[in-house]
């Protein structure tokens, strides 16, 4: 089976601004694919192009092996989700909004409204409430309910956890893993690196409209710079000198006290043991940047200017 999403050389200009610059993206069936990048990197433009909201100036987009021209009106069959905050008609209730969308979808979408509302935690009075009174989290939930009634086999979500409470976020993560296990492909745009690391199989990092890195998550981690740790000790000066004697460990005094240490997991273990041997007590140790975060910041720092090189990472 071919890829579910295949983007090749997509370029989009808005006047003088290059929003997307020869972007490639491949998502396989059943994959949860993270789309990462700082603000203005082109994530929303790329998702909008997948939905056909933005028409590329160059390049091709295939969903389920078909271009938009080949698929015609059926281009988005089996595709659900939203770009940016889901928008609805404020003067209609949540249920009526879904009925409007089900009317556009046709098929049996209308019969799925009740279960979708219940699944999204919007059954009962919330379903009858006008959307103008919804919180951001409720709109996100209604957006997911609107996706559910499409029976998606490709789910495209742009920051879906925005405004959700912790229980909702946990629930969403579990749901995305579950739908992926059922064979649904997911493209998840997110600023939440931990969320991406937890639930994604692969990821693409965009920077200034270009693909800075793409591949399976384990391959990205392997190509990433050392993670960053924050270390607090009983004697930071001595801890610093211990670090200078170890290969693969780079330490410096942090802004708020303590040390900032760049080291892979194995080297960090050795450093902790060395601190103990040097009679330096370890009072705190936390992972400040995971490998993926470190890669992200390495690739996207100064994202306002074009990235000179593209890291191609394949599994």
């Amino acid at each position, binding site marked *: 089976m071919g890829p579910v999403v295949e983007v090749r050389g997509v370029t989009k200009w*808005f006047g003088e601004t290059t929003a997307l610059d020869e972007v490639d993206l491949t998502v396989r069936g059943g994959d949860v694919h993270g789309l990462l990048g700082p603000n203005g990197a082109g994530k929303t433009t790329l998702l*909008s192009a997948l*939905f*056909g*909201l*933005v*028409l590329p100036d160059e390049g091709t987009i295939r969903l389920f092996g078909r271009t938009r021209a080949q698929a*015609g*009106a*059926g*281009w*988005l*069959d*089996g*595709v*659900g*989700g*939203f*770009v*940016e905050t*889901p*928008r*609805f*008609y*404020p*003067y*209609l209730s949540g249920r*009526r909004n879904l*009925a*409007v*969308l089900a*009317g*556009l*979808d*046709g*098929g*049996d*979408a209308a019969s*799925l409204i009740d*279960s979708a509302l*219940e*699944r*999204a*935690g919007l059954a009962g009075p919330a379903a009858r409430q006008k959307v103008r009174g919804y919180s951001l989290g409720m709109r996100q939930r209604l957006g*997911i309910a609107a996706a*559910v*009634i*499409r*029976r*998606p*086999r490709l789910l495209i979500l742009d920051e879906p956890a925005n405004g959700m409470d912790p229980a909702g976020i946990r*629930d*969403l993560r*579990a*749901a995305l*893993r*579950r*739908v992926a296990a*059922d064979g*649904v492909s997911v493209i998840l745009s997110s600023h939440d690196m931990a969320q991406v690391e937890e639930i994604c199989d692969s990821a693409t990092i965009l920077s200034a409209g270009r693909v800075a890195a793409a591949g399976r998550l384990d391959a990205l981690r392997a190509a990433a710079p050392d993670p960053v740790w924050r270390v607090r000790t009983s004697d930071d000066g001595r801890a610093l000198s211990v670090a200078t004697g170890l290969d693969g460990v780079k330490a410096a005094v942090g802004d708020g006290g303590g040390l900032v240490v760049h080291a892979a997991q194995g080297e960090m273990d050795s450093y902790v043991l060395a601190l103990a041997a040097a009679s330096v007590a370890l009072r705190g140790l936390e992972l400040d940047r995971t490998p993926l975060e470190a890669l992200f910041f390495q690739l996207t720092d100064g994202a306002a200017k074009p990235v000179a090189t593209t890291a191609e990472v394949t599994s």
Partner: protein
Amino acid sequence: MSLAAEPWPAYAGATSARTGGVAGALAVWRVELVKLSGKIVIRAIIALSVIGPFLVVGFLHLQSATPGDTPFGQWVHASGFAIPMTILGFGGQWILPALTGVVAGDIYSADDHLGTWKTILTRSRGRAELFAGKFLAAATFAVTALLVLTVTDLLAGLAAGRSPVVGLSGQLVPAGHATWLVAASYLSDLPPLLGFTALAVLLSVASRNSVVGIGGTVVIGVLFQIVTLANLPQWGQQALLSTPFMSWHGFWGAPAFYGPFLWSLLTCAAWFAACSAAAWLIFRRRTIEAAA
């Protein structure tokens, strides 16, 4: 239940492919009518269209003077048939463009304002179906509003009196024939009304702004009225979209003449086609942005 509690509904094959084209546009049309029915302003307009003519009859009864500067105005106390014709003569060129502008001037730009294009364009309907369905809904409202006004204005007139009415050539028109002429006069405003609907759609699509869509339609209608006062050549007068609102004058002559009405069909068809085509050309390749 929670998002992850059970398997999500599985993909069950293409749906839009079976209902694309005309059926797809009709699906959008039905959805737009549901949305329109949820708007208080639309309900208020329909209610006012029903009640308004009877209020006008009551107001005229309280007045001893007559609106003599309007065709049929001098006969409002003599015949009930003069009342709907006075309303049509006085308000047709002003009220009808505004009436269709309220829906057609807003039906596209409201989705820009609310940011809902990205919601409805990510469903199973193409741009052509959405454009056609919305256009059809706007036209449906215009036709419905005109039909309601035709019936309620006529009923209000009949309630005021069923005496024969004096025609525009001074002839006496009996009640039975007058009833048909009133209905025909109102329905003759349908072509320019649909022309203004297309104009409002164009303004709504091009500006992405409901104030421009609605207000612009009214302002252009007024500008046409002002231009009419200028000493334009006949072809210039006939090319204006407001002129066909007066084509019913010939129905009430003795003998009746239909040349202006037939000419108005051409004028309205040209405006309708040009505005619709321009709106579609703008809409089909536009980029959808987030709401402001």
